């Protein structure tokens, strides 16, 4: 048994940034990680981190108000607007802090710089008084150039800088360690049961505060994802297994327009931001006509839908692996591609043998980001279970709503890491009842029994991996870019069948120690539950909002659906219970996003009327009391003075 003040599950950017904050406040912190921290999926983020510093010429006039507007519009009004406000206001501080931690941000070069904008090469004078400040690149759905970047290795550079601070502070990291259950008494979380991924041994960690920072769950889409192989939603599944903590908006799944086809590896949006464009089989830039204003830089959900429509209309490029489209980077030239987009050049070369300044890159939309996750309040505390927090992609803090803007996830990790880290430090300092050893013993015994039962089941029939592959096919084919009620219904039935199947499946391998098959057997039922929560949330939501696009309900319906889905899973149940809460206080009234198809059903009440019931409705769903009352950080109306985003 180990005892600590703060247990952080997950050592990516969000978890580590959070750990630094708690450790700097003087609390003992223990981080668990499936892999060495610097292998976390954060390291794979390429393009950039949004923060309204307003440094380069095309960022002139940018400020947190504009960032707030872009984020809420991008979310298709699904975001909690107070959280979007906290985020936009804190992003510049958090990014500058990373410079302080040593991130080699790309900097403003004064004088004439050549860029590619909407297919044209242009020369822009960068102001001399901004020389050497952090540079920005263009990303989709934003009014200004705002993404701060370190070549195409922003995630790598920032993760290494943050991890170096973790090492410097002497924070303990147990790598190759997985949390397999939370220890709780129904009201308060006391830590987790953990399994060593070197030896297979079980142990418990007792903590005053436990943080889920395990990233997304893209692997429920099998191989149809840009996510790393460790993104199996282990943290979200832990929360769901409590039967108390709900997951928010699981049906909000982002598809990234440019997954390398067929490898599924991501090609950063920075490619389009820097002037790359998409072509169909005929060599047409189809987005010029479809999205005259933003073209390739409309929001990710919008671009992904246009791409899939292009493919469905037969204008895709035929290949042995199925149709795809082209990303054209040739005009950016060798120098740009080997410096500012170097990682993209390497990926094209290593995995497809393509030289991107000479050849076209095959791409297709791929599952990319989980907007849904462990539902938390603005302090990052999970609904219903005091002492449990979640941060980063694992959380539904909810600044992304139904569509996350590019560069906002990396920025969220460090902003939420700071904000939630502070609230954890505060929570621990306030004390309260300490962890109870008896609870640890019974939780450990229950997990031991689970593993013993698994090992005792007869082997035979299909393998875990065959079930996983079928789950991936169901998710991509029926819960992909386009969805319809009929298809989702069959998906639900099939996923429930798979969940029953895994509950009887035995292991072929009895090798002592780690036993990779056992490791996977412990995760797969949780993944199927996440898949079912996604499917049922999508089935119930009879509208289209952001990345959730129902062809049978193509309109965004604010009258009925300006609310967040909450999914709880009672022990032994076959499906989650769904309920709803208002998305949060509204400040920016719902409207057209400025790109993509227009058309929505308006909110039938005034903002004031809507806002009146929000706090109590959320509290009724288990939202715990926040340090400051709901709305205290909203700054209502401040955005009115801001430059109006996409027109």
């Amino acid at each position, binding site marked *: 048994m180990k005892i600590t003040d703060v247990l952080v599950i997950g050592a990516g950017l969000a978890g580590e940034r959070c750990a630094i904050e708690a450790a700097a406040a003087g609390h003992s912190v223990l981080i668990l990680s499936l892999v060495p921290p*610097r292998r*976390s999926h954060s390291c794979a983020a390429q393009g950039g981190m949004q923060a309204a510093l307003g440094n380069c010429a095309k960022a002139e006039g940018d400020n947190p108000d504009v960032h707030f507007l872009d984020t809420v519009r991008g979310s298709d009004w699904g975001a909690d607007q107070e959280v979007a406000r906290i985020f936009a206001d804190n992003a510049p501080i958090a990014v*500058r802090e990373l410079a302080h931690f040593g991130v080699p941000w790309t900097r403003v070069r004064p004088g004439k710089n050549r860029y590619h904008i909407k297919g044209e090469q242009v020369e822009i004078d960068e102001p001399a008084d901004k020389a050497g400040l952090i540079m920005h690149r263009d990303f989709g759905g934003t009014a200004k150039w705002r993404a701060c970047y370190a070549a195409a290795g922003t995630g*790598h550079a920032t993760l290494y800088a943050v991890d*170096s601070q973790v090492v*410097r502070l002497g924070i303990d990291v147990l790598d190759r360690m997985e949390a397999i259950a939370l220890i709780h008494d129904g009201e308060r979380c006391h830590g987790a049961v953990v399994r060593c991924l070197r030896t297979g041994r079980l142990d418990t960690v007792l903590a005053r505060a436990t943080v889920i920072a395990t990233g997304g769950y893209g692997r429920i889409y099998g191989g149809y994802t840009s996510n790393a192989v460790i993104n199996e939603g282990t943290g979200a599944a832990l929360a769901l297994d409590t039967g108390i903590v709900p997951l928010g908006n699981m049906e909000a799944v982002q598809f990234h327009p440019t997954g390398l086809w*067929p490898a599924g590896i991501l090609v950063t949006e920075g490619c389009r931001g820097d002037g790359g464009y998409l072509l169909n089989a005929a060599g047409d830039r189809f987005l010029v006509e479809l999205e005259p204003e933003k073209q390739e830089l409309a929001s990710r959900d919008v671009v992904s839908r246009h791409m899939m429509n292009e493919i469905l209309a037969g204008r895709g490029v035929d290949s042995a692996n199925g149709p795809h489209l082209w990303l054209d980077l040739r005009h950016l030239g060798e120098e740009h591609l080997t410096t500012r987009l170097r990682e993209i050049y390497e990926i094209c070369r290593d*995995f497809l043998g393509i030289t991107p300044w000479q050849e076209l890159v095959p791409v297709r939309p791929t599952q990319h980001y989980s907007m849904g996750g462990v539902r938390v309040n603005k302090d990052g505390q999970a609904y219903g279970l005091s002492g449990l927090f979640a941060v980063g992609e694992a959380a539904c803090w909810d600044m992304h709503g139904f569509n996350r803007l590019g560069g906002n996830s990396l920025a969220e990790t460090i902003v939420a890491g700071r904000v939630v880290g502070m609230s954890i430090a505060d929570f621990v300092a306030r004390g309260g009842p300490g962890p109870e050893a008896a609870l640890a013993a019974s939780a450990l015994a229950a997990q031991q029994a689970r593993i013993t039962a698994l090992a005792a089941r007869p082997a035979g029939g299909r393998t875990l991996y065959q079930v996983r592959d079928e789950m991936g096919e169901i998710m991509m084919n029926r819960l992909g870019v386009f969805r319809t009620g009929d298809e989702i219904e069959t998906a639900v039935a099939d996923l429930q069948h798979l969940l029953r199947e895994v509950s009887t499946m035995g292991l072929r*391998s009895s090798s002592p120690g780690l036993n990779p098959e056992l490791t996977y057997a412990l995760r797969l039922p949780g993944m199927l539950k996440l898949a079912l929560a996604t499917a049922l949330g999508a089935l119930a939501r009879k509208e289209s909002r952001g990345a959730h696009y129902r062809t049978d309900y193509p309109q965004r319906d604010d009258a009925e659906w300006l609310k967040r889905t909450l999914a709880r899973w009672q022990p032994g149940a076959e499906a989650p219970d769904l309920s709803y809460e208002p998305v949060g206080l509204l400040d920016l009234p719902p409207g057209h996003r400025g790109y993509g198809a227009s058309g929505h059903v308006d909110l039938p009440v005034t903002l004031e009327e809507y806002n009146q019931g929000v706090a109590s409705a959320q509290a009724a769903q288990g939202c715990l009391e926040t340090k400051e009352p709901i709305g205290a950080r909203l700054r209502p109306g401040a955005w009115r003075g801001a430059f109006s985003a996409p027109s």
Partner: protein
Amino acid sequence: MTMSKARKLKFEIFRYNPEDPASKPRMETFELQETPFMSLFIALNKLREEQDPSLQFDFVCRSAVCGSCGMMVNGRPALACKTLTAQLESTIRLHPLPAFRLVGDLSVDTGSWFRGMTERVQGWIDEKAPFDPNAQEERMDDELAQAIYERERCIECGCCVASCAVANTRPAFVAPAGLNRVARFMMDPRDRRKTGDWFEVFASDEGVFGCLGLMACQDVCPKELPLREVYAYLRRKALTGVLSRKAKPV
């Protein structure tokens, strides 16, 4: 990249499970039909899923940016995810990286090694002043930012360490990755440490003077880091460090 005919691949894989008293280090042979664009990531997963569920190996990003899957491929350290079988003969021998503690089969403990190295070389920014949330960021020339990024690109895969004759025989040697890390922070103006502060770490036979100059590290580095330049930079710094020390009035 295209293959003339589908090959049957033979994999000879190192096996050992330290948690199993009955396990002895040995080589085991597997066979697999080659498919187009097959990487070792695809091949090893197929072997585990279809033939031996106990096989241990590490992958995370599967796109050559996380550094998890370093292993010996036909006796040479490489990232398994970006090694395409089409580049190899039909018999492929896989061993775990040497110089690291074995976890099992092809999996090694790079995490502990790199954490230890980071602690030893103090691989973090020792900033000049506390962070001021209200201040503009310190300015930096973009050329310099790019030069630092060039050193920063190391993914800690361990291929250089595994390829290094010195690192394999002297655990105290900070190894190529460690020297690269020292250079990265030494050239960063945001760090307040002077060359002399690093002296004991790099200007000894556990540092850059322990290097035999065989340069296998640069040959195998999957990120093509210019390690030769790093060592030249450090030797230059060591020299100027010594001279500046001597020049100080006693």
